[in-house]
């Protein structure tokens, strides 16, 4: 490859200034003439039948313009076509506290708020289910009638290689249980949507979404309006992290209210509602049984997971498969069995959060590898290096591996942190830990079956040399607009500032499946490169003619097309554009990207896991544990990440740092937990997302394996780097206090418990974690009994 003029340099993102100055227009910044304000009435019950909804008083309230309920939009919807079990607003039943039931549009927000209290809903309570164990057992209570076995949403079993032979050949077998607590995305911007239904009978929805194309499809289905009359515009997302990749009730409600009133309607969720919209990390119970030879070589792995899915499907079927799919891509595993079960519970639906479904098993597996290394007397870093899955190989579950930089990541970390010298040497209360991981650069399959490209892009060059790139990606703060502009600029030989990006608009831009599964740089990047390459050859053809130089001797950079043998012989880019348009008409080209065939297996369930390229990463965490208060402080996290090629190192480092921060928060204290059916901490004061003062020192090492199929060699950098941080911290805590944390988060209480200092009457433990399924720690009915006692006492007081 020739020298790069734009890519590989540290550059501010094309939209940095708009975001920094507040000029970027988020959905809630939109104010349209005659706009109404909407609010959702939410369920106060965890599980209940809706006997009656009376909206008449609300509808008659001065200032209220329209009220809609679930009955107005009864069509089933959901992000995965095979498991659509949601409605825009609850129809006959509510399944979690906070589920949207009705929506009001009024002249102002206060009126809409007041009107909600005038809607009368009569509920008939049903037994709620809050735990995995109870969901597996209770045949008498069905959160969804369709569930065949108790409240099981999905059960999958996959087996590869000869598991029995693997265990038979093992010298050492470890069998460990883990639990990963649920947590949520907590983006800075709460969800917001503005809908407008025009005199042309067309609906426009501006919304903070990661998936404008999928939402477009669902709007058609639910509203009964042909897609040709719907336009979805993904506004810049103020953070999303997977939490804005489902179709949401407020989006349909805003659209329907706009249809009914023929006035623009805005619905912006408040912070508490964002906790109910959720779709965050699944709580997962896991059992991992791993056989190894004396030298640590893995002979067999049996991985089982039980996912607490909450009330609806969301991406759950993919999440379930993801918990088992990617364990095989980092280290050699010759025999592998995966059993996964996802259950329904009466809590806000879980879904994809950064690392989607792979974060929990990666935590369990990397903690177990640390134990195996210790059992066998191996250095955890050297051990991982010795068992690496090779580049350009296939895993036991038939996943194609291409570029693979995990070994380089581990080497780089060893040098940067002196891990092997320092492990076990830092003194009691101080520790260092390591873990590796991998992630996909975009899912190999779309969520609905089709033969079309995963990403399309269109590029237009104007007569002044300006370039417009159109692509259906959503800018969610990750820098996708900048990637599109930079790839186009590099290919055409101009500057990113010459490029105008139109993204996330279903009417103006070709379909890109969306900003999820870390697919944008790889897939949209390739699509833009494809389109730009077509235009480039037209420009080079006319330049060759004008400069009288063969086209293959021409290069383009810095707005010039020049002779590589004599760079002073050049044609300005804008002149080339004029010549090309004069010759063959407007300079417009479309490009696309479709992942290659044969990157995964053909068995049922093989659709989840394949990707055109895996990113690899490893992290070292350094911690201090206060032995008297139990407080864990993470002093430093060093992450090495193989992103193929860093198209913009500053942006890659930002993503890796952000991921390290998020992973740190997940293990140190963030938890989406409930008291009965009620979220225990639905605010940013109570949900302990770390502040800048808490955040450890973060160091990033970029490893470049230059992937053969990635755009200019690039792979993903957005999600994978979260994964190793969590087990690295757990392993570091072990190094500090010799206690295994086989469950998250690691709280001060749990540390004190392990140290035998819980209120001065405990006994020291070497491990904190589950003993199995239904081990009594999570008594399913405890919360309910407590709630019942409290309600009974209330009644006694009332009647006495």
């Amino acid at each position: 490859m020739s020298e790069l003029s734009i890519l590989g340099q540290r550059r501010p993102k094309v939209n940095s200034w708009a975001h920094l100055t507040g000029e970027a227009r988020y959905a809630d910044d939109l104010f349209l003439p005659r706009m109404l304000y909407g609010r959702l009435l939410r369920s106060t019950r965890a599980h209940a039948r809706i006997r009656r909804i009376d909206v008449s008083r609300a509808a008659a309230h001065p200032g209220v313009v329209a009220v809609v309920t679930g009955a107005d939009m009864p069509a089933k919807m959901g992000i995965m076509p095979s498991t659509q079990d949601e409605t825009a607003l609850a129809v006959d039943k509510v399944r979690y506290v906070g589920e949207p039931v009705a929506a009001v549009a009024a002249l102002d927000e206060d009126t809409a708020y007041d009107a909600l209290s005038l809607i009368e809903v009569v509920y008939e309570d049903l037994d709620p289910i809050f735990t995995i164990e109870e969901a597996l057992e209770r045949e008498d209570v069905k959160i969804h009638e369709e569930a065949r076995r108790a409240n099981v949403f999905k059960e999958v079993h996959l087996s590869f290689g000869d598991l029995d032979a693997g265990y038979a050949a093992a010298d050492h077998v470890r069998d460990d249980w883990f639990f990963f607590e649920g947590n949520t995305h907590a983006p800075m911007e709460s969800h917001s949507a503005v809908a407008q239904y025009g005199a042309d009978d067309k609906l426009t929805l501006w919304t903070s979404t990661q998936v404008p194309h999928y939402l477009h499809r669902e709007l058609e289905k639910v509203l009964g309006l042909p897609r040709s009359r719907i336009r979805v515009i993904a506004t810049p997302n103020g953070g999303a992290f997977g939490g804005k990749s489902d179709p949401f009730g407020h989006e349909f409600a805003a659209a329907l209210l706009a249809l009914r009133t023929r006035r623009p309607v805005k619905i912006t969720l408040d912070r508490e509602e964002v906790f109910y919209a959720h779709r965050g990390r699944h709580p997962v119970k896991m059992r991992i049984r791993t056989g190894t030879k004396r030298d640590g070589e893995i002979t067999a792995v049996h991985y089982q997971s039980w996912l607490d899915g909450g009330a609806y499907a969301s991406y759950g079927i993919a999440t379930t498969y993801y918990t088992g799919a990617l364990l095989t891509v980092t280290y050699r595993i010759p025999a592998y069995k995966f059993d996964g079960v996802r259950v329904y519970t009466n809590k806000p639906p879980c879904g994809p959060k950064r690392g989607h479904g792979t974060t929990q098993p990666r935590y369990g597996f990397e903690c177990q590898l640390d134990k195996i290394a210790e059992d066998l007397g191996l250095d955890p870093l050297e051990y991982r290096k010795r068992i690496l899955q090779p580049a350009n190989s296939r895993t036991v579950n038939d996943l194609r591996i291409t570029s693979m930089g995990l070994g380089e990541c581990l080497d780089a970390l060893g040098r940067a942190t002196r891990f092997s010298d320092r492990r076990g040497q830092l003194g009691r209360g101080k520790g260092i830990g390591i873990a590796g991981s991998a992630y996909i650069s975009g899912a190999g399959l779309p969520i609905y079956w089709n033969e079309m490209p995963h990403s399309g892009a269109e590029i237009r060059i104007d007569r002044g040399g300006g370039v417009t790139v159109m692509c259906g990606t959503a800018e969610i703060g990750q820098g996708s607009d900048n990637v599109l502009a930079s790839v186009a600029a590099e290919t055409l030989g101009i500057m990113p500032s010459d490029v105008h990006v139109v993204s996330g608009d279903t009417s103006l831009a070709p379909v890109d499946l969306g900003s999820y599964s870390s697919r944008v740089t790889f897939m949209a990047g390739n699509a833009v490169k494809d389109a730009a390459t077509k235009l480039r050859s037209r420009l080079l053809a006319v330049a060759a003619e004008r400069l009288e130089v063969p086209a293959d001797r021409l290069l383009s950079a810095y707005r010039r097309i020049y002779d590589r043998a004599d760079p002073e012989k050049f044609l300005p880019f804008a002149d080339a554009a004029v010549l090309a348009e004069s010759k063959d008409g407007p300079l417009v080209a479309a490009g696309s990207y479709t992942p290659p065939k044969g990157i995964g297996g053909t068995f049922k369930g093989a659709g989840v896991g394949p990707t055109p390229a895996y990113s690899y990463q490893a992290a070292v965490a350094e911690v201090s544990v206060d032995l008297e208060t139990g407080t864990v402080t993470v002093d430093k996290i060093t992450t090495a990440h193989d992103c193929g090629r860093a198209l913009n190192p500053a942006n890659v480092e930002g993503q890796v740092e952000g991921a390290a921060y998020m992973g740190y928060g997940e293990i140190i204290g963030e938890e989406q937990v409930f008291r009965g059916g009620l979220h225990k901490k639905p605010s940013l004061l109570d949900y302990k997302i770390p502040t800048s003062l808490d955040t450890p020192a973060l160091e990033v090492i970029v490893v470049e394996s230059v992937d053969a199929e990635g755009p200019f060699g690039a792979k993903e950098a957005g999600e994978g780097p979260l994964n190793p941080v969590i087990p690295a911290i757990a392993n570091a805590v072990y190094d500090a206090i010799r206690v295994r944390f086989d469950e998250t988060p690691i709280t001060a209480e749990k540390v004190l418990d392990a140290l035998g200092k819980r209120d001065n009457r405990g006994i020291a433990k070497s491990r904190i974690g589950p003993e199995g399924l239904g081990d009594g720690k999570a008594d399913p009915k405890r919360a309910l009994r407590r709630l019942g006692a409290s309600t009974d006492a209330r009644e006694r007081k009332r009647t006495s």
Partner: protein
Amino acid sequence: MLRLPRFRVLSPRTYREAATLLREHGAAELDRARGTPTLRVMLVAGGTDLFPNMKRRQFAPELLVSLAGVRDAAGIHENGRLEISAGTTLTAVAADARVRERYTALAQAAEVVSTPQLRNMGTIGGNVCLDTRCNWYDQSLFWRTAEGFCMKTNPEVVCRVATSSPLCLAVASADTVPALLVLGATVHLEDADGGREVALADLYREDGIRAWALRQDEVLTDVTVPRADGWRSTYLKLRDRGSFDFPIAAVAAAVRHDGTRVAEARVAITALGSRPVLVAPAGAALVGTNLEDDAIAAAADAVHRAARPMDNTSGTISQRKRAARVFTERALRALRANLQP
């Protein structure tokens, strides 16, 4: 976002006027027409606690009497004793060189309240009068409706933390209070007819609802700390994060030496019950000692006994009770170390 309920604001120029307005508008009267009964008229200074609570409809007063326009409501004066006007911001208290040097615990406490933005708005008077907190209470109207309310917002309901408790168990959560307690602070209260001085220790009650021995028509105007000759003090706070969070256990300690012996000592705690407590036995255990380890241990034991956390904040009961002991030891050891030349 959550919206404020509708209300009127009056902005008097003097404390006397503010107190008169409180009385005229029926300061102690409850408004039962708004879902949960709340006071009809309330005072607002910085608003950093009041407005979020109003957004969540923990109360929805018809009328707010704002202290923002009161003349000379802010300022710190040292003439023999330290006089802090109630409207002084927490930022100003934390930054004041005299406070930092001679009333250290207070500066340290003011400095760790919430976030810089909130310290710029929040006042010392507001912090002293901070509403008690509970994770059954500090929730939105929606949440509390779904949960069925609690004693503090609905008199027909029991305390949800301990259903047999006759009293609300919401938690005293003001950082500056234990610091002011160990410094021996008094407060000045003004009403329409005159004023009175109250020892800060007497301002609080063991009751999460009626947490202050303060009439609804009184205005807290000044905080006064006696001359700090020879006193050294410090404040330690347990919270989940380095910013933003209320204390879930906190200890302030002050000692005055006479030669090598402790002549006077005070230890106070907060966030470990409904009332901030000056732990007298802890102070007594230190007098006459040279802060030897066993003296410190005795004081820490006394604090541990006085700490009665419930399961209604972040963290856990045992973690917070333990922190009370550990922080007492650390605070006293810090004061001992300070003594070394």
